[in-house]
């Protein structure tokens, strides 16, 4: 009963929030928070349960069914956890903006429909929830209104529609072949399926999931969407919504098809997982260098979301238990630190009056320490420095790639990380370090309700980084559900013959060394705190206004790489859209409104028919 209740609470809560919002904004806020909290508690109680159930109603003779297992639980937990924090964060961030009832309703509705996709037990209800998710996302992307927001929304929804159509075709062909859309039954049937059907289904589904996962070359909707979406929703979008694509891939590759079938899907060296892995590798490198060229705090994070998706796909497509664990764990880690980073970027935006341009910020470390800690830890997680969660998952992915003998994929993964360092440092430096501009002297601290989500996520980044055994045991169960060998685990890391990872040792070493150096520093050195204006400027007093280096932070590198990292897919899609529009315009010209021309069309058409019949006589 729990799962049904979960869905009812999720969907009912979102509707009720809208209704309550008409009465009082406080009531609405309180209820939204309560609803999100209740969902988190319920999903917590569902941990470890595994069942599948058909609902008492159906559609076209198909029974809806929902199910709960570790895979669903894992994704549901990330969705609801980030959802709760986003709702809490929204209170201050959205304060004083228009259409708040609508905003909260859509936010909770997206959460509910994402929850629906992961607990759906058959492909039809999966598809229905998926569509609900797509459309409500569109509504929230273009919430702000205005040309750019609508453009971003349209871009998203068109790409998403292409994906949905592909999925629909795949589902229908599966249904015609086996007469069922239940995932469990399909998994059994697929083992006897013909290779052609399997290939069709795999390609169609992959298009859907690659689009929503924003992998190259279908990433183009994501940066625009992030630039326009409000920050709490950006967090949801890039932390969990985008990863529904990976959930779909898991479902497709390991639940429906299974290993033996995946191995058969290969032509020589080109196998399905190989293609996927290379798409992941290209995504990583391309996104890293694209992010380097950005100058907008949220666009940088958006491109990093694209890139990190590549890591997960790399890990998943290696299809060893280590790679799988790395990929799955990276989903959780990415969801934590990218939400953290979007919350930080949103807090900066909120307090500075909407500044997202990295050139006009600076020196905020003294004004917004909480945001700084959040941003620093988030970037460390993104880079994957030791003691943060990102390190463990990336370690697993690298190691599995190296041990599987795929050095080129591993190279792409490493290169992406080094690109991440560059743009990650730029993000920190241009926002928090350097001189504080005069315009930002009166910036206030992060408000409490926005600081709480940031601090919670900071703690999680370190907790999962130092004690990776805890989340990895969950990840292990997900892997086991999909048929992988469980990984050897300790609470401090991963013991293995080909290289052990022991994070607690690392922590101890860093703590001891840090303490010793600190002691040396404090006992031997003496220092006086000076103002930021007491700075070496070749003997001059530093000039008023900006005395910093932020503009075109990596200019020489831009000059080298920018000719090579043009966003070709984006240009291609825009060109297609343009041509389509032109074609539409031409079609419209046919309807001239003059009866004579219509008569002429009919006569011409008939003449053509007669001509065809006389020449080839097909009828």
């Amino acid at each position, binding site marked *: 009963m729990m799962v049904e209740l979960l869905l009812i609470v999720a969907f009912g809560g979102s509707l009720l929030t809208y209704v309550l919002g008409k009465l009082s904004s406080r009531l609405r806020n309180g209820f939204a928070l309560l609803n999100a909290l209740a969902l988190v508690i319920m999903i917590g109680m569902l941990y470890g349960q595994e069942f599948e159930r058909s609902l008492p109603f159906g559609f076209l003779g198909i029974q809806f069914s929902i199910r709960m297992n570790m895979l669903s639980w894992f994704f549901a937990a990330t969705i609801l956890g980030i959802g709760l924090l986003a709702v809490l964060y929204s209170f201050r961030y959205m304060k004083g903006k228009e259409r708040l009832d609508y905003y909260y309703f859509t936010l909770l509705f997206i959460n509910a429909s994402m929850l629906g996709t992961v607990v759906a037990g058959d492909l039809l209800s999966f598809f229905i929830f998926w569509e609900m998710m797509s459309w409500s996302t569109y509504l929230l992307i273009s919430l702000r209104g205005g040309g750019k927001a609508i453009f971003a929304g349209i871009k998203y929804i068109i790409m998403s529609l292409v994906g949905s159509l592909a999925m629909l075709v795949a589902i229908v062909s599966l249904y015609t072949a086996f007469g069922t859309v239940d995932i469990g039954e399909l998994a059994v049937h697929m083992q006897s399926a013909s290779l052609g059907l399997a290939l069709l289904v795999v390609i169609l589904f992959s298009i859907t999931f690659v689009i929503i996962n924003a992998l190259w070359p279908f990433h183009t909707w994501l940066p625009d969407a992030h630039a326009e979406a409000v920050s709490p929703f950006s967090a949801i979008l890039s932390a969990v919504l985008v990863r529904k694509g990976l959930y779909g891939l898991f479902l497709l590759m390991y639940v429906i098809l299974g290993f033996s079938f995946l191995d058969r899907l290969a032509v020589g060296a080109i196998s399905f997982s190989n293609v996927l892995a290379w798409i992941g590798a290209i995504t990583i490198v391309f996104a890293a260098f694209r992010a380097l060229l950005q100058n907008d705090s949220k666009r940088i994070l958006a491109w990093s979301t694209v890139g990190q998706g590549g890591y997960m796909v790399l890990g998943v497509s290696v299809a060893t238990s280590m790679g799988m664990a790395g990929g799955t764990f990276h989903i959780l880690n990415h969801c934590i630190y990218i939400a953290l980073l979007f919350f930080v970027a949103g807090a900066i935006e909120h307090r500075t009056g909407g500044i997202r341009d990295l050139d006009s910020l600076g020196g905020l470390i003294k004004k917004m320490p909480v945001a700084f800690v959040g941003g620093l830890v988030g970037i460390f997680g993104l880079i994957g420095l030791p003691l943060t969660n990102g390190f463990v998952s990336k370690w697993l992915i690298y190691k599995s790639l190296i041990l599987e003998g795929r050095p080129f994929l591993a190279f792409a993964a490493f290169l992406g990380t080094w690109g991440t360092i560059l743009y990650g440092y730029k993000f920190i430096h241009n926002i928090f370090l350097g001189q504080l501009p005069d315009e930002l002297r009166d910036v206030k601290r992060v408000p409490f309700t926005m600081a709480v989500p940031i601090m919670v996520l900071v703690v999680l980044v370190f907790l999962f980084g130092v004690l990776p055994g805890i989340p990895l045991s969950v990840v292990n169960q997900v892997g086991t559900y999909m048929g992988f060998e469980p990984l050897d685990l300790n609470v401090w890391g991963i013991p293995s013959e080909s290289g052990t990872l022991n994070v607690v040792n690392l922590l101890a070493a860093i703590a001891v060394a840090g303490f010793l150096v600190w002691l040396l520093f404090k006992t031997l050195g003496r220092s006086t705190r000076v103002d930021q*204006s007491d700075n*070496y400027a070749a003997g*001059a*007093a530093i000039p008023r206004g900006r005395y910093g280096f932020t503009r075109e932070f990596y200019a020489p590198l831009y000059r080298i790489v920018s000719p090579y990292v043009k966003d070709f897919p984006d240009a291609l899609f825009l060109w297609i859209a343009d041509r389509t529009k032109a074609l539409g315009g031409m079609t419209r010209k046919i309807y001239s409104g003059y009866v004579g021309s219509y008569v002429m069309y009919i006569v011409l058409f008939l003449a053509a028919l007669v001509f065809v019949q006389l020449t080839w006589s097909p009828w």
Partner: protein
Amino acid sequence: MDRNQLIKWLEAPAKMGHKYSLHAVYFCTGCGIIEVPPSITARWDAERFGVLPTASPRQANLFLITGYVSVKTLKAIIRTYEQMPEPKYTVGFGSCPINGGMYWDSYNTIKHLDKYIPIDGWIAGCMPRPEAIFVAVTHLWTLIDKDMADGYKRYRKYYSQYRANQEKVLLGLEWPPLFPIEAG
């Protein structure tokens, strides 16, 4: 290294460190800077005495004021001197910083540099040869040994007088006082 040196090292490592690691601000104030390149490069090799030019005053402890000091240069000198970490030593190089030298009757050149910042030693001459720099360095060693190179302490102690002189000649400074100024 003879035994005396060793004992001195053990007794006062900080003092010995300062003696043998004089890092100079590479700041060209006047014509005398032309004597510095030969003294730090292969001809005279100042590095064997531990004297090395540094790029930023934060890293330095020796300030060579080489040649005449115009009012504008004085401002940069004061700023640079205040940014050097203590202990720090200043040496006036050439006759112009001492008393104005050939620029005595100039409307815009400082006559007595020690009215604005404390000076630990002078090298007289117009121009002094690079050898004079090494004489000054060895002399500075003796002064450091005897705790007589105490310009930075004097600057702290008589800061209000120094600051008053600086403000008088420069018509006010853009930066706040380095040390608190007692009233009167």
